[in-house]
């Protein structure tokens, strides 16, 4: 008899065993679905943040980031002598274009008198701006700004309107006069933090709003490489050893090494616990189920069913419970991932477009492999019971009962 026919018969038998106890089978499948959903989410979480950050960095189009220290931008000290630094970097080999970015906090006046807190990105250089214009046009001259959708909505302004900005550029700038700026467009900012209102302008505009004439300070220099980003990083490091230059992969490495490694650890711990939980409970379900049917199994063996055949029945029963539960776990896991992602994105300091749970084919493959292994391992003990079952003694016990 070929293997396929045996498997089909074992599956049919296992299906009949399950449907004979619908409540028990449904609860087992639902349990696997819930555990499987959690398992899938933990697998998505283990790499999600890095995958999402890599996609975000790649989409921004810059290859190298230069800061004063290895701290993330906005967390470390600023770069000084920006014009000189830009000029030095721009003339290095492997460099296509550069852009200095300065982040400043501020508040804009709203029509009813109250103010709206904003974050201002001032940029200077020949690389593309780190925002995408949705309406209107991009900034060209000093005094022009683009704003994000939330600022446009909350301040009730749009392209063509005037904006009064109170910039907070650090110690000693509390009493700066307000700057009158002209809105020329509405843009999206890929690295905008959750619940942040952002304004984009030229470095000159921001410098002027900060009460200075000369744009000599920035938080970050973004560089696009002409060819190999690693060669560009090496060139920058050689020319300016006092600065911290990092390629996108190095930035991701830093993020992986620091705070976000927590999510990978919690994912590993919860994956282990979830799998152990599923394994234990499916094994118990199958063992109790087999123990309740010992007489029936002994009768089948007496009728000529081989040991491997009854073992295959148990394995197929396990595979059906885990398989159906596993399939159900995919939509449940996807829905749960959306909810959990929404919770984690409330974390302060996280770019709005960054996601913690990102679908990857490898995570799905691992999920299926782990569930398959769980089905197999959970069936081992009940399979052992049916294989070692003494036929005559079991039938005699059943008759005696």
């Amino acid at each position, binding site marked *: 008899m070929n293997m396929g026919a045996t498997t089909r018969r074992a599956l049919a038998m296992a299906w009949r065993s399950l449907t004979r106890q619908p409540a028990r089978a449904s609860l087992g499948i639902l349990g696997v679905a*819930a555990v499987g959903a959690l398992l899938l989410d933990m697998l998505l979480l283990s790499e999600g943040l890095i995958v999402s950050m890599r996609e975000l960095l790649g989409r921004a189009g810059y290859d190298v980031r230069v800061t004063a220290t290895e701290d993330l931008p906005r967390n470390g000290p600023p770069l000084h002598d920006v014009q000189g630094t830009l000029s030095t970097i721009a003339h290095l080999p492997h460099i296509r274009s550069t852009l200095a970015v300065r982040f400043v906090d501020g508040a804009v006046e709203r029509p009813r008198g109250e103010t709206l807190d904003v974050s201002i990105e001032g940029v200077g250089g020949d690389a593309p701006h780190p925002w995408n214009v949705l309406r209107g046009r991009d900034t060209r001259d000093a005094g022009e700004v683009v704003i994000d959708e939330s600022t446009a909505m909350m301040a009730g302004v749009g392209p063509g309107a005037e904006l009064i900005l109170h910039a907070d550029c650090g110690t000693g700038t509390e009493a700066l006069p307000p700057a009158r700026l002209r809105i020329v467009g509405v843009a999206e900012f890929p690295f905008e933090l959750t619940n942040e209102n952002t304004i984009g302008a030229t470095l000159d505009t921001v410098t002027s709003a900060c009460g200075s004439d000369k744009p000599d300070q920035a938080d970050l220099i973004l560089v696009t490489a002409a060819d190999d980003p690693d060669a560009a990083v090496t060139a920058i490091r050689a020319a300016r050893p006092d600065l911290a230059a990092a390629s996108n992969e190095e930035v991701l490495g830093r993020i992986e090494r620091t705070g976000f490694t927590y999510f990978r650890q919690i994912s590993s711990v919860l994956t282990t616990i979830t799998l152990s939980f599923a394994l234990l409970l499916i094994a118990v379900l199958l063992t109790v189920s087999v123990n309740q049917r010992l007489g029936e199994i002994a009768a089948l063996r007496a009728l000529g069913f081989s040991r491997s055949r009854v073992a295959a029945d148990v394995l197929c029963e396990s595979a059906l419970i885990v398989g159906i539960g596993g399939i159900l776990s995919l939509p449940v896991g996807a829905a749960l991932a959306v909810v959990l992602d929404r919770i984690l994105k409330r974390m302060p300091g996280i770019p709005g477009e960054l996601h913690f749970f990102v679908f990857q084919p490898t995570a799905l493959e691992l999920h299926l492999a782990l569930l398959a292994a769980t089905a197999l391992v959970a069936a081992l003990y009940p399979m052992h019971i049916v294989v070692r079952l003494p036929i005559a003694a079991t039938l005699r016990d059943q008759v005696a009962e």
Partner: protein
Amino acid sequence: MSVRSALLVFVVALAISASPGRAETDRFPPVAISRQLAEARHLSIGATIRLSTDRAGAHTREFRVVGIYEPTPNPARLGSPDLEVRFHLPDLLALTRDPGTPAGSESMDGINVALADPADARAFARDVNARLPGINARPAAEATGSAGRFIVLRQFHLAIAAVTIGAATVFLLALTIMLVDERRETVGVLRLIGLPARRILMQVLLEGIIVAAAGAVFGLVLSLASERLINRFFQWRYDTALVFVRITADVALTCVAIAVPLGAAATVIASWALLRRNALRLARR
């Protein structure tokens, strides 16, 4: 107002080296370094180190290590090694001051104030804010800048716990249905000899409570054992004294308050369907 903090914590990008000549080093300003920095650079008390605020190591100044301390655990810096140096404030200002900045005009990040009566913290902060415009005074309990991140993590863990409880409940129900089914004949006989369904249900409920309570206690013992294991692993992994898992009385009570009623309810729900059946049908072979 008494200024308590004469020391500031300052993390520097440094050129560090140990050098001999202890008699000469006594003239160098004293600093204390974190245990992690001491281990990373093999420094000990009495060593001389050169510090600079310049990544390239230019304009260094020499200091004498007079102490090694365990940094206060900071969850916001998890994963970053605590490579710290503590200076006397005048030494730190001398090291970081721009050449054009006259001494005494530097800025500081904060001043920690110890009050005679800590209960006055809120009133004191209000008073300072009113008298000194441009200064933001806050009670220490409210100055938790990164608390938002941990509130979100707490919500995330609660959501995970809710899903786990849901999955556990489903499995528990499946198991109790099977266990109750095994006792179908016993229940049928009890009904036939005259025990009312309510009496049997009460017995099942008590049994469920006892089993659930035993399970909850076992779970708590397991948690207490794993608490130490998890903390030790993460403290080793991140080289920190932070406590990651702490099973408080509140947490333990919450677990018992969820587990015991849930276990008892699952037993009763599983038994209820059985008890509604005819006693003869239950007892028949």
